[in-house]
């Protein structure tokens, strides 16, 4: 099968605040890094798939394709969608269909340009009726946690352990980010800091439970399998790609404790890749909050429903760099996750893919997973909205 999509190069910017840079500058930087890595020329590109969640709102930019055309002097087909995963999804489909052989997938976001209104925008886009009722982007996460605690009857010592486990997720992600030169926050934090922030807010989740707002860009070059060797001898194949969708209004969903879209997406992605879940050794989860990382471990099937916090808690008592779940190792959010790496919505998925790409190629440097055997497969999960869309990608150096 010569049309299998293969990633031949990745690039990204540091995530954080880039007030001095135009949005186009960021994507240029990410693209240049990726193109240098694989020695690709602009003329090699047959199409560009871009993503930004809301540049038209944050920067009053529409038709971002035109900006990119000016920047690259390319006149190839270009399409803009919302998340990096959605751009990649379309790119995979096109490659598989045999339409193109070499495409650029890029993502970009400039959230701090509208820092003062960003929470209103996010909430309104994510779940308008909840916004009208007074919800904030953080509140849905807290409600999900409340629903989780109630559904699984977690109380007393166990509740304390659950709360500690959530704090540990943040501590662990910050620890990972100290080795990530691109990360927004390259500093350690402590469980006490996480807990104190909650106490200060008088809420179940606090400042350190949430991913920040960020600027940044990411890019990758996707080719068909046959073309990959032109650019690299270590391509990473996209073995599984899937997308599932759920209601926009969170309260209207049947299950408030899990993301149905993620459960469907993982099933389809595994089926497509023809592997089983525990063939996956490294995973990048969408930890917009610590709750989301915990829930996602359950949605993807790594942990039983209502029990992920137990594995997290146990793994983090003496953290060795991975979650130990039923005796198996799962390297999770090695780049620092959204929490510490940053979360420029349209570019976030690119940073997730970037990490798994590097890990599978054994090129993650200090961050490289210390696994017993070579990592075979990695998984990336990205959400759009509060679980409204869930993308799952399964990447591998080899394929069956």
């Amino acid at each position, binding site marked *: 099968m010569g049309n299998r999509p293969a990633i031949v190069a990745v690039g990204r910017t540091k995530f954080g605040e880039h007030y001095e840079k135009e949005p186009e500058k960021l994507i240029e930087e990410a693209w240049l890094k990726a193109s240098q890595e694989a020695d690709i020329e602009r003329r090699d590109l047959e199409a560009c798939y871009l993503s930004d969640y809301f540049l038209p709102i944050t920067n009053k930019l529409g038709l971002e394709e035109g900006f990119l055309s000016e920047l690259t002097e390319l006149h190839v087909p270009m399409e803009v969608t919302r998340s990096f995963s959605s751009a990649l999804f379309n790119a995979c489909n096109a490659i598989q269909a045999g339409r193109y052989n070499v495409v650029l997938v890029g993502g970009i976001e400039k959230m701090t340009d509208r820092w003062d209104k960003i*929470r209103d925008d996010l909430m309104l886009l994510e779940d308008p009726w909840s*916004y009208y*009722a*007074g919800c904030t982007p953080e*509140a849905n996460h807290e*409600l999900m946690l*409340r*629903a989780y605690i109630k559904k699984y009857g977690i109380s007393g010592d166990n509740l304390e352990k659950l709360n500690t486990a959530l704090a540990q997720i943040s501590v662990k992600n910050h620890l990972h980010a100290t080795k990530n030169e691109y990360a927004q926050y390259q500093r350690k934090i402590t469980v006490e800091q996480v807990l104190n922030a909650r106490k200060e807010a008088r809420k179940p989740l606090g400042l350190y439970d949430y991913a920040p707002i960020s600027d940044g860009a990411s890019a990758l070059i996707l080719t068909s399998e046959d073309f990959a060797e032109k650019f690299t001898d270590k391509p990473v194949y996209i073995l599984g790609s899937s997308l599932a969708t759920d209601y926009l209004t969170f309260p209207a969903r049947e299950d*408030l404790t899990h993301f149905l879209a993620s459960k469907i997406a993982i099933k389809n992605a595994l089926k497509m890749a023809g592997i089983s879940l525990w063939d996956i050794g490294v995973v990048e989860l969408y930890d917009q909050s610590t709750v989301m990382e915990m829930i996602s471990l359950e949605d993807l099937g790594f942990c039983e429903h209502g029990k992920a916090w137990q594995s997290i808690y146990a793994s983090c008592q003496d953290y060795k760099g991975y979650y130990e779940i039923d005796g198996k190792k799962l390297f999770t959010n090695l780049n620092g996750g959204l929490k510490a790496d940053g979360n420029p919505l349209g570019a976030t998925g690119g940073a997730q893919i970037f990490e798994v790409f590097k890990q599978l190629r054994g090129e993650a440097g200090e961050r490289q997973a210390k696994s017993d055997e070579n990592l075979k497969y990695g998984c990336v999960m990205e959400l759009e909205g509060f679980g409204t869309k869930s993308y799952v990608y399964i990447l591998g150096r080899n394929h069956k």
Partner: protein
Amino acid sequence: MSSEPIERRVSYLGDRLRGRRCGICGKEYFEVRDYCGVCGRKSFGKMVDIDLFYEKGKLEICTLINEPTNKFTKLGKYIYGIVSFHNGKIRVPGRLTDQITKEDEEIDFSVFEGREVVPRFRRRYSVDKSDVIPTISLAFTFADEYYPHQEYNVVKPNKEYETPGIVGYGVYIPRFRIKEGGMERSVPFIDEDSITAAVEAGKLALIHSGVDSTLVGKVYVGSESNPYAVKPIASKVAQVLKLGEEDEDVQGVDAVDTEFACKAATSMFKDAASLVNYPKSSIRYAMVIGTDNSQAAPRDCPGGELDLFVGFGACAYIFGKNDVIAEVEGWYSCTSDTPDFWRRDGQPYPMHGGRFTGEPAYFKHIRKAAKKLMERLNLKVEDINYFVAHQPNVQFPMKVAKELGFKEEQYLPSIQVAKFGNTYSGSSPLGLASILDIAKPDERILIASYGSGAGSDAYSLVTTNQILEKRKRQKLTVKYQAENPFLSYVDYTTYRRLKVGM
């Protein structure tokens, strides 16, 4: 930025909490959808309208919002969560309203979760002063606190009376009070205004009367604190309460706002009573609402003396000829051009306290209207069981009642100003409601309103025996709202902040 079409659509669904139920599988949607997501095409034409406006829900889960999004910042901190209706068949987001969360208070969410809540019609969030005011009923209060859940049971019109009269009424006063100088005054919560109060009062009047809202052919809303200079409160009331026949998204009802200082509502009692009595009119019922977020300048400013007396609230009366609880026996109105109190367009607060306050204004007009009416109906003071006057303070109504020859037992029961403050357009209607709450059948009530500018409407009302039957339907009586254990007292600064609103 504000988009009127978006506002229109969000309000249309959100004010009334409209939805649809699939006639085949029973799935419910908070949305007016034409087919069911489960049953698909075969459910076209089988979707049934539902709304949650008179229902009670359950607060499933909640959290504290202490850093709201920009448009909600004026609410400060509030509890937000998910509310279910119909045993979980339908779930909506919602915030708790009428709660002031203290700075350092530890909050145990489990105290709130699982409790029954009632949807309340409120302002949605802050917008620019020139924008359309967004409203919504995804605001809730606990059913076991100040505002209980009451079912709206439509009762088929039964007995027809010769003389039209009041068939039902509702008084809405929020739970907040300020206590100063021997008086308690009602204070709106920050998301309330004269529009939201008018809807609340109208809702309570429909509940009390049992009148089918589609049979209400006209609604008058009297106010001097409409947040709009141009745009009626009455249109919002008509749409939210579904007055008149509903055809697509238009209500078959006439709706109008009236203005004459504090007599804007009472002036229309006779119009409502006459309208339902016109032989060729198809209008069975007419609703009159007096609503005010009574305005006063801050205490140290010109006109600021009013700040010691203003209240907040609304009263709604439904007039008709069926199942009357108090017949309108007669009326007399008088008017003169007397500038004792006024507010120029664009000014936030009225001017008051000049030469004409008191004798040449309030006393002269009320005396004239009451005396003339008694003369015309050939009534003596002894023929009247209760006397109700406009209540800008405690002294004025007592003084005018004594001058007219009434005894304490005739006028004291109606004097409510010390509990609620001056509710302006709702003031004498509130006094009247407090009497209707306690009156026996065949009693005569004389009410004399007063509106600055100036004029007075006097009415003689005679109660019927239906007043007793209908009383059972209303938990939110005047006394209940005055002596409620869930009253919340605020200080002066909070009172001014709440009154200015979102």
